């Protein structure tokens, strides 16, 4: 089932897209782990950026093996949009973190619980 039987070609980044997908999956898991375990809001945001980067790796990797259709480079365009949205998200989120820090004198996400029911 696993392509070990077909030889080691799947391990070569120059012949197959699988190594890139593996890197993307690993980066996604590390980012999710960062988001889940960190208390500091800035560190949580770093994890979010890692997750977005892993999605981008997949977009660009699939664009490479896609049969070129009507719209060329769609994967690249999606990656560019994700980068732009990540920039907007980082700006707003860090402004919120600064605001929270000014009001609560902490930037730990489990300290700012004013709106918790």
């Amino acid at each position, binding site marked *: 089932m696993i392509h070990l039987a077909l030889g080691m070609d799947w391990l070569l980044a*120059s012949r197959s897209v699988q190594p890139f997908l593996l890197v993307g999956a690993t980066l996604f898991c590390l980012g999710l782990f*960062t988001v889940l375990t960190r*208390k500091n809001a*800035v560190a949580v945001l770093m994890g979010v950026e890692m997750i977005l980067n892993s999605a*981008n790796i997949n977009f660009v990797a699939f664009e490479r093996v896609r049969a070129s259709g009507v719209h*060329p480079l769609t994967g*690249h365009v999606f990656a560019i949009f994700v980068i732009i949205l990540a920039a907007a998200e980082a700006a707003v989120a860090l402004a919120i973190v600064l605001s929270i820090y000014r009001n609560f004198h902490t930037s730990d996400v489990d300290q700012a619980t004013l709106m918790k029911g």
Partner: protein
Amino acid sequence: MHGWQELVYNLAFWVMTLLTVGGAAFVAWSKNLVRSGFALLLTFFGVAGLYALLEADFVAALQLLIYVGGILVLFMFAVMLTHKISDVNLSNESSPQRGAFAAIYVLWVFLVYVILATRWPDAPQFGRTATVEELGRGLMTTWLLPFEVVSLLLLVALIGAAYLARPLAIKIIEPLGSANQQAGLAKPAGWSARGAK
């Protein structure tokens, strides 16, 4: 692709993978928030290298410009502004990790199994020309509406960020009054009667 070219390509891939995953693991486990930020630099750089290896030259350049040059600087500013510069240590406390690690490990094994068990299309030959021209044409024709919408969204997000990050409005008015006095401007009528300085 000649043999030695392929060797160099795969070597570059593993170097970039090491940078990406190593930096990400350091971000995930480091106790020091400033060091996490610098490890994030390695991750972003490695991802840019992976884009370059995937023949996405423009996306790689954007990754370097926006992520490394913009977002990472923003992160370092946020780290420095929310903590006293002197206590950069131990600002990155983490909650209990064992359950999260187990869950994420299961997810990772599942993802790796899916990736290895699926038959992906073979990568085509290398030799694509520069992508900038095609991308520019696409952004001005096919993707024009999303392009404009996302520019509007970026504008709104930046205005919102500037609004959120500034101090309260009352604190802004006071220095304005004193600045007027310093400049020798005429005080409004009844200024002192209201008890202002």
